[in-house]
């Protein structure tokens, strides 16, 4: 079985570090090194033979002792192999080269019409600037062209990042006409990396949009690290970056417990992968592969990566289709429609938002959603300066909602400042006070209103004492 002892565990086991183990380089103080156990071998033997080998092998011996492994215990795998021999088993791949480095390249075309779960992949081409703006809540993207989009997913040697993490497999997907092209670059060992990076960068140069899942925090910085580590140019910085995980969060963070791609596939796209390798196992499997040459699991890793990329395009298609339908009716779930309205608000698409919200209010009597809808709706009307409609909305809301003071106070403000109808304002203030009798802000408002009313009365009837 796999023997996996790390120095950390050793250090943990031992408590900590032992001081003064090694002699300084100049004075070859042999005794110290040899006398580490119970009684001492006579110092002469080692002092006679001050060769570097005895020194360092005893050093190694020491490390081994600490780990509790005997020196003749050979490693559990044969290291004298090269995956080149086994690479033939990885069917469908071709070798591409850069300088002295070679890597494997796989490509596959998913011709139109190809369905991913319930969606048609090519519907992702409907995802244009408008959809991009909505799903990025108005920021990030100026212009979007799905034909220039590059879907990217990496498989890495660890989930931590940092300079010691390598992307051993990078998959990219893009549309050519209505067909979906998927290419993968795979490292058979660490020295394949330059070839992989070079080939990837060529594809990147032809694209304008970098699309991934959690790619802003993970894939992209990791790739940038890899290019810097290899001193190779990286054109990824020139692409606009569109992270679908952020999009998913904007739509579903209230509905789903997490927004992992897996969860999205299951609950949004209604698909489930069969025989998929859990992502968490992938680093270990590749590391095993480079050590043992056993490529048994590699095709499944490749498949996992392809599925990830298809899911990205599928998700985009799913969203594009639904945003296109007016009044948010493309979305079945009330919560999703509410999320859409929020995004429309953030983008400043107020009339779209009003349509979505008014429709939504007719669909649901779930109180928290209604409150949010009313609130957004009143904001939307205000932004559009549709004052009367806003008043209507607030009145409807106030009539219905006896739990929050918000509509009452908004009405009070409206009548006080815009309409100068103090009595109306006073009425709504008192309504608000019924809900929150202790609220000092409201009490203050009432006082002020009463004062104002007194003043105007005085002005109107100057003769009255």
């Amino acid at each position, binding site marked *: 079985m796999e023997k996996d002892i790390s120095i950390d565990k050793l250090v943990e086991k031992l408590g*900590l570090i032992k001081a003064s183990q090694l002699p300084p380089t100049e004075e070859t103080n042999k005794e110290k090194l040899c006398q580490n156990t119970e009684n001492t071998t006579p110092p002469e033997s080692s002092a006679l033979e001050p060769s570097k080998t005895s020194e360092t092998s005893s050093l190694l011996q020491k490390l081994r002792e600490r780990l509790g492994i005997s020196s003749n215990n050979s490693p559990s795998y044969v290291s004298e192999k090269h995956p080149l021999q086994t690479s033939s088993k990885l069917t469908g791949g071709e070798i591409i080269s850069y300088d002295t480095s070679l890597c494997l390249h796989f490509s596959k075309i998913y011709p139109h019409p190809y369905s991913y779960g319930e969606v048609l992949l090519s519907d992702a081409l409907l995802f244009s600037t408008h959809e991009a703006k909505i799903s990025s809540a108005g920021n990030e993207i100026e212009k979007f062209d799905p034909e220039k989009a590059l879907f990217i997913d990496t498989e890495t040697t660890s989930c931590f990042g940092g300079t010691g993490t390598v992307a051993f497999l990078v998959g990219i997907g893009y549309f050519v006409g209505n067909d979906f092209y998927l290419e993968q670059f795979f490292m058979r060992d660490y020295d394949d990396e330059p070839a992989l990076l070079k080939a990837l960068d060529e594809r990147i140069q032809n694209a304008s949009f970098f699309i991934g899942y959690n790619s802003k925090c993970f894939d992209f910085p990791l790739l940038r690290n890899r290019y810097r580590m290899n001193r190779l140019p990286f054109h990824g910085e020139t692409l606009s970056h569109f992270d679908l995980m952020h999009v998913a969060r904007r739509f579903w963070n209230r509905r789903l417990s997490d927004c992992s791609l897996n969860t999205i596939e299951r609950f949004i796209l209604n698909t489930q992968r069969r025989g998929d390798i859990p992502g968490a196992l992938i680093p270990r499997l590749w590391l095993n592969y480079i050590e043992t040459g056993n490529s048994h699991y590699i095709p499944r890793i490749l498949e996992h990566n392809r599925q990830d990329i298809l899911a990205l395009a599928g998700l985009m298609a799913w969203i594009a289709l639904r945003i296109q339908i007016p009044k948010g009716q493309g979305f079945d779930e009330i919560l999703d429609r509410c999320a859409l309205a929020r995004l429309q608000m953030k983008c400043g698409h107020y009339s779209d938002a009003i349509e979505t919200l008014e429709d939504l209010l007719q669909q649901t009597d779930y109180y928290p959603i209604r409150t949010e809808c009313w609130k957004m709706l009143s904001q939307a009307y205000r932004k559009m300066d549709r004052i009367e409609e806003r008043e209507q909305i607030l009145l409807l809301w106030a009539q219905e909602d006896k739990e929050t003071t918000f509509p009452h106070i908004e009405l009070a403000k409206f009548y006080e400042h815009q309409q100068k109808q103090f009595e109306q304002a006073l009425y709504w203030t008192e309504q608000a006070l019924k809900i929150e009798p202790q609220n000092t802000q409201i009490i203050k408002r009432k006082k002020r209103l009463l004062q104002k009313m007194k003043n105007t009365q005085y002005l109107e009837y100057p003769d009255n004492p």
Partner: protein
Amino acid sequence: MNISQIIEQLQNNSSFKQNLTAWKILPAEPAKYEEFPEGLDERLISALSCRGIYRLYTHQAEAVKSAFRGENLCIVTPTASGKTFCYNLPVLQSILKNPNSRALYIFPTKALSQDQVHELKELNDTLNLGIKTYTFDGDTPTTARQAIRSAGQIVVTNPDMLHTGILPHHTIWIHLFENLKYIVIDEIHYYRGVLGSHLTNILRRLKRISAFYNSKPQFICCSATIANPKELAEKLIEAPVTLIDRNGAPRSEKHFLFYNPPVIDTELGIRKSSTKEATRIASQLLSKDIQTILFARSRLQVEIVTTYLKDMARRMNISDQRVCGYRGGYLPTERRAIEEGLRKGEILSVVSTNALELGIDIGSLDACIMVGYSGSISSTWQQAGRAGRRQGTSLVILVASSSPLDQFIINHPEYFFGQNAESATLDPNNLYILTSHLKCSAFELPFVEGEVFGIDTHSTRTILEFLQEQRILHKVKEQWHWSAESYPAQDISLRTAAPGNVVILDSQNHGRVIGEVDYFSAPSEIYENAIYMHQSETYTIEHLDLEDRKAYARSVETDYYTDAELKVDLGVINICEKKEEPLHTCVWGEIKVTWLPTIYKKIKFGTHENVGWGEIHLPEQTMHTLGYWMELSESLIQKAKIPVENLSDALVSFVNALRQVAPVQVLCDPSDIRAHAMLKAPLSQKPTLFLYERYPGGVGFSEKIFHQHYDLIQGGLSLLENCPCKNGCPSCVGPAIEVGHSGKQQALQLARVLAQSKKEWNKLLNNSF
């Protein structure tokens, strides 16, 4: 009244003077100046002139010139000699010349780095240079990090952050590493032992990364006075270093007094409490408006002295706000306020642990009182350096406690003044530290066949192959790549303290945070019912939640404080070296220490009498460290004529005496070494005496003692023979109440037999040749 008048008064005060064992006057030294070095940027010169600086002290000029020549330097100057100019000038110059140029400042603690940035910002503002200086440590908000990485021209950090946060992510620090011109390491004397070994290895990693980005930074190190600053600097950076140690800053006249509290019980040899005597002297200075710093030996002592001094201040109608404690565990804002108060002169007396020994900027004070000897010559000078303005006179008083080391120092002032400061040692090629960092380094950049990390090609390859065998690295085409899923730097902690402190919350005041205690100390400081003191306010601990790292305290009025007693147990893990000696065996190796706080004593303020006790219910704690021990043979016990029933007392007495001598012998802090005696050690079943190191992992004192084994016995013997007490006192084996009435006598017998048998043995050996 000024300080000179106070000194004059003391000179005429015979009752004070009769307790003095030394009155040393260190003469004033005038400033030595030099013109601005050639090549110094005009903008810097004119900016300095605006601040009224028209020339430099000689050491500053020397440092700048040496830096311009491209040398690595180590600057050794006392506190307040303007050492920051020594590195800031070359760094600022390089940035003025090329705004892309970058510098990295490394300080041992977060507090120091904040202080430094504060100072640099001030300099920057007055010079109007627009140089971007940022601290990058655990407290830096994520939002600011991006800007620091790309735009920070001077990045100030600490070894821990460099280790876990910067080096493993060097690709995002590309702007820093590509243009790294200077690395400044301040307070290098702090990096001794394990921490120093870590730092050397971190610098090895840093240099590998710099080389990858084609930069070759120059190092500027600063150190307090130690015996071997150049050697230490060269060991840390592993390159030749130019030493700059001729201080050009002026020095005021300094009076250094050794004060031994008078004996109040001649029979028992009991002296007046050093705490009280020091407080009394400090209160007199306080009443004369003399700004004074008191250095106490422990956090508890800081609080006790603060309490007493505040009390005296009130009695003299001085606001007790002018007296302050300062120690680890105070909140950062609180500390900043105290530092500020000291600089402004609003605070007259500050009582501190060695936290203020390092270069935190509090300005210079008039007087310094040390409550007990700090245990090290260099830190004593460092503390003394806190007193002494550029002009005038300053006063330093060392008040000895009754501890044997204190009594030795106070009675041998010539020893102190004649002795060199301690040397700092570190072992960068400690196998475990080296291997740990080699792992981190492989994570950062693959290793190429033939590369050297630390020792030489061969051993580097051996370790790499070892890591390969463990499947942590993978070799292909002459390169070793990191091939594990983990992030190695995270698992390697540079310091011994467990991560995270225990915070103390005021349960009456909406859970306001009062202070914090490090995780290891929590069970012996903030157990339930303990009295926790903070700025001399007393709180009782209601509940300690070690898991959540919280303790709940309630403010109370008490007239006592608490002190915990620990039950300590020892086990041997691994024997490193062992030698058979006549009648005994001595060994050093790795040991496991477990300790358990069992009871606490309530001790009354003022009289220090014991007024009660309680039990502590907490889980035990474990530490792995290095230890030295002596296994005594049956015949030794017989020869020393120790009856079985007295053996326990005899062993405790003897080990206590040895523990007194050992710190002097290996030049470490007395608190670095602990002692323990066992009637039957678990492994050998023999009576055994242990001396062990207080730090997890150990730093190598045990090995040193092992090799000076007979010096230790000889030292113990002469301590026992020369101590004037009858049945034992705190200066030798401990008070008779603790070690029994025959303890001292029997310890003496043991020591004599051991020393005697060695002599006979040697004679025998000589005769046989």
